[in-house]
């Protein structure tokens, strides 16, 4: 059996040399899901029949398989807020139950074109609103590292599927940390690209000015390979950027000598977990020993990021989720006699608690008399946060921070108080507000749970954050920690 965590390149080489076949990889993925997903619950739906059919279609072209792309024949999972023609897409919400998209998201189309095989749709917080995957309307997902802990969210299913070895990679979406935070909690790599780097066409919108799709993988190189396949401008998404797509693997040399690395005290809150603080400080020391120059910088406004975000993201959500009205798709309440009652009962019965909460906060922030005090002030704060980063990036190449202020928490621990749950995203939210790329890479353990190091880059400079993350990963060998942990667990 090939271990998916050894990386996409190794799997590709095994396919090329004929020591494995796409069927074998697919079978392994399905077996792993059968063995583990009863407990972990990463998948909402496994589409093994569709996957096998697709594989047959590919294999029909030639008898002996020879991969045309690094991802050719590699199975993967898609977060359930991305559409794939003919495969149910629910955003883990009752309101979209039974929705079969008549079209495919650009990212999934690009992965199809590369030959990757979609194996299933991964669990998530309903409409990507949450930090623990406990807001799924179907069931919570468990952290494969330790199952009484949350996997993080909202891309908790995608991350758990990768961390548990069920798929070599998955796609998630990140509006305030939903790729990086769960990646940190489960000890894998998660990359949020620059706003506009990846097309959002076919991603069910949560907060359109913040949402971005990105890879969840076992290694930094894998993240570069998957980003390469999904990046680029798209006629179907006017916010996708017409910026050249460089070779994301080109700088993965391990050499970061002379790079300027910024560290901001504002990312290290007094209340943060001591183990996380230590692991991140050790990581900074590793970067220094690799020849990077460490510079103190200041980001004075990022402490206001959560306040701004929890007005802006719900405001956008209240508008985006207006489309779920029981008319064109999904659930419709049968308890209504007229149109208005049909709308409000459908939405009342179809949306979960957190989604209602956010729609209401957003509606309030945009409503007459409160717009200037809330929405507009938050947009002004967003400008200041972006300027903080611009200022900092005039002095450094990347900024490093913890991905989360503490490691994964227990299931049920933070569901009572929304604001406490929101705080878990304090290090990731500022990056979405500023539109920047950032990657989370494992940097050790605290309280026996994985810790994430966040590396933030300049607009459209994913190359350099990948370079730093890769050099760090090659030096610390978290894979050994992972192997030791899984042996211990057995």
């Amino acid at each position, binding site marked *: 059996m090939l271990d998916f965590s050894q990386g996409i390149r190794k799997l590709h080489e095994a396919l090329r040399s004929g020591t494995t076949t796409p069927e074998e990889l697919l079978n392994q993925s399905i077996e792993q899901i059968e063995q583990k997903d009863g407990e972990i619950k990463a998948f909402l739906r496994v589409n093994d029949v569709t996957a096998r059919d697709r594989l047959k279609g590919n294999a029909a072209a030639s008898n002996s398989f020879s991969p045309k792309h690094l991802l050719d024949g590699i199975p993967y999972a898609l977060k359930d807020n991305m559409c794939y023609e003919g495969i149910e897409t629910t955003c883990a919400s009752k309101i979209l139950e039974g929705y079969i998209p008549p079209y495919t998201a650009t990212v999934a189309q690009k992965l199809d074109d590369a030959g990757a095989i979609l194996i299933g749709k991964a669990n998530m917080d309903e409409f990507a609103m949450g930090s623990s995957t406990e807001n799924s309307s179907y069931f919570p997902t468990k952290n494969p590292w330790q199952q009484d802990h949350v996997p993080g969210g909202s891309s908790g299913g995608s991350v758990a599927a990768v961390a548990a070895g069920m798929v070599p990679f998955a796609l998630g979406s990140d509006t305030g940390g939903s790729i990086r935070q769960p990646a940190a909690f489960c000890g894998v790599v998660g990359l949020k690209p620059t706003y506009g780097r990846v097309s959002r066409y076919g991603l069910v919108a949560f907060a359109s000015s913040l949402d971005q799709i990105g890879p969840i993988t076992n290694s930094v190189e894998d993240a570069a390979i998957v980003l390469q396949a999904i990046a680029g401008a798209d006629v179907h998404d006017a916010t996708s950027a017409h910026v050249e797509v460089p070779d994301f693997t080109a700088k993965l040399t391990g050499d970061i000598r002379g790079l300027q690395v910024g560290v901001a005290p504002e990312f290290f809150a007094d209340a943060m977990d001591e183990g996380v603080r230590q692991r991140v400080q050790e990581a900074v020391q590793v970067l220094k020993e690799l020849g990077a120059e460490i510079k103190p910088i200041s980001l004075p406004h990022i402490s*206001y990021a959560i306040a701004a975000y929890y007005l802006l993201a719900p405001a956008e959500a*209240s508008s985006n989720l207006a489309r779920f009205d029981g008319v064109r798709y999904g659930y419709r309440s049968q308890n209504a006699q007229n*149109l208005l009652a049909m709308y409000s009962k459908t939405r009342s019965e179809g949306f979960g608690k957190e989604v209602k909460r956010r*729609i*209401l*906060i957003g509606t309030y922030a945009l409503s007459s008399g409160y717009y200037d005090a809330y929405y507009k002030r938050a947009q002004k704060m967003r400008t200041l946060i*972006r300027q903080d980063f611009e200022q900092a990036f005039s002095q450094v190449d990347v900024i490093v921070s913890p991905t989360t202020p503490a490691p994964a928490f227990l299931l049920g621990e933070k569901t009572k108080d*929304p604001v406490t749950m929101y705080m878990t995203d304090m290090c990731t939210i500022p990056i979405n507000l500023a539109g920047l790329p950032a990657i989370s890479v494992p940097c050790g353990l605290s309280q026996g749970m994985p810790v994430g190091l966040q590396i933030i880059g300049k607009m459209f400079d994913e190359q350099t954050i990948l370079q730093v993350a890769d050099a760090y990963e090659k030096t610390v060998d978290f894979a050994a920690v992972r192997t030791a942990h899984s042996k211990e667990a057995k």
Partner: protein
Amino acid sequence: MTLSKADVDHVARLARIDLSEQEEIELAKELSAILDYASQLQEVDLDGVEPMSHVAGQQPVFRQDEPHESLPSDIVLKNAPDAEDQQFKVPAIMEG
């Protein structure tokens, strides 16, 4: 900032979400806590700061005004809870 049950009721009507009495009481508390937290934005002097309109300063994107093929209506209607004669069907808009 404290939201009353009546405030929640008003916002819920704007958002077209039906709430039970119990939900309104709970949400009044929870939404007030979120607004309390957000009130720290009121401490900062934001006079003269331009509100952000696009994170990368992107300019409007233009394309040729050319018709493209749309999805066939039977495929679009497939997901509808109720449809008739190639149209979405909804409950009566007018009473009586």
